């Protein structure tokens, strides 16, 4: 019996991504190395934050990807709900750990960046707190995928969770803003990239952002391939078991 894929879509996806993956991955690596080296070695210090501003080259791209990964999962979940393309559901599953790592990087770099400024290892700054909550959403999503055996059921449940979670994540963002601003604490130093609009900072930042985006795409392509194959294997194993 020839190696038959159940759907043309997964086969096309794997074929296309096999072609594209080396290029995307290679380009990601180039952008990351160039951007990080440029940012680390060849940019001046910020007059207010000193050398710690160099953390921006990790913190901002990671934070952007943390959000964008979740948005991609949201879109993929919607596509699954409406059009039932398995590749879409599996792509969302594949993206989640990448998004979680991005969130973790944003949190760690954010905390380390703030430490010399605030004097403590962690502050409940609204932005950092929102990312912490986002991490919890990622973990819950990943855990739900892992807990359900049936592939279709898992895809359905996790896509609804992603939808509902997105609404609550947005709600939490505003709640946290209210929660911290409302307590009249001293204005927290903004880790915003708006502070550093000068070209000399901005260009390497763009390169790093590009690198992170490309890395995300490469990892999702790779991991979705793996998920497709894993699903295929489960089907074949079940078929084998039934003789």
């Amino acid at each position, binding site marked *: 019996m020839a*190696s038959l894929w159940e759907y043309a879509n997964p086969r096309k996806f794997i074929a296309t991504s096999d072609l594209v993956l080396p290029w995307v991955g290679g380009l990601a690596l180039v952008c990351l190395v160039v951007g990080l080296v440029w940012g680390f070695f060849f940019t001046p210090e910020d007059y207010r934050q*000193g*050398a710690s501003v160099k953390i921006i080259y990790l913190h901002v791209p990671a934070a952007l990807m943390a959000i964008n990964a979740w948005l991609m999962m949201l879109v993929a979940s919607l596509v699954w709900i409406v059009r039932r393309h398995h590749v879409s559901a599996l792509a969302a599953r594949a993206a989640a750990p990448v998004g979680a790592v991005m969130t973790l*990087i944003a949190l760690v*770099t954010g905390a*380390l960046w703030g430490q010399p400024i605030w004097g403590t290892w962690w502050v409940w700054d609204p932005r950092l707190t929102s990312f912490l909550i986002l991490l919890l959403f990622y973990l819950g999503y990943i855990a739900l995928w892992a807990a359900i055996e049936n592939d279709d059921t898992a895809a359905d449940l996790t896509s609804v969770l992603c939808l509902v979670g997105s609404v609550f994540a947005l709600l939490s963002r505003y709640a946290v803003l209210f929660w911290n601003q409302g307590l009249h604490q001293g204005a927290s130093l903004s880790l915003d990239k708006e502070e550093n609009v000068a070209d000399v900072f901005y260009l390497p930042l763009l390169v790093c952002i590009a690198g992170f985006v490309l890395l995300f795409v490469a*990892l999702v392509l790779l991991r979705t391939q793996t998920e497709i194959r894993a699903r295929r294997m489960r089907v074949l194993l079940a078929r084998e078991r039934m003789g």
Partner: protein
Amino acid sequence: MPELGKYVFAVLGSYGISVAMLVVLCTLSLMRARKMRRDLAAIEQRMRRDG
């Protein structure tokens, strides 16, 4: 090495941890991808033989 002053721990720590996490993520993803490719090929081989 640029002058990091008092931020040496924060900056080097950030770069170190972030790069380490990315490397681990990529390595694990590649390893799992490779394993899945192998296992699937093996099972398809088996089915072709027996089928």
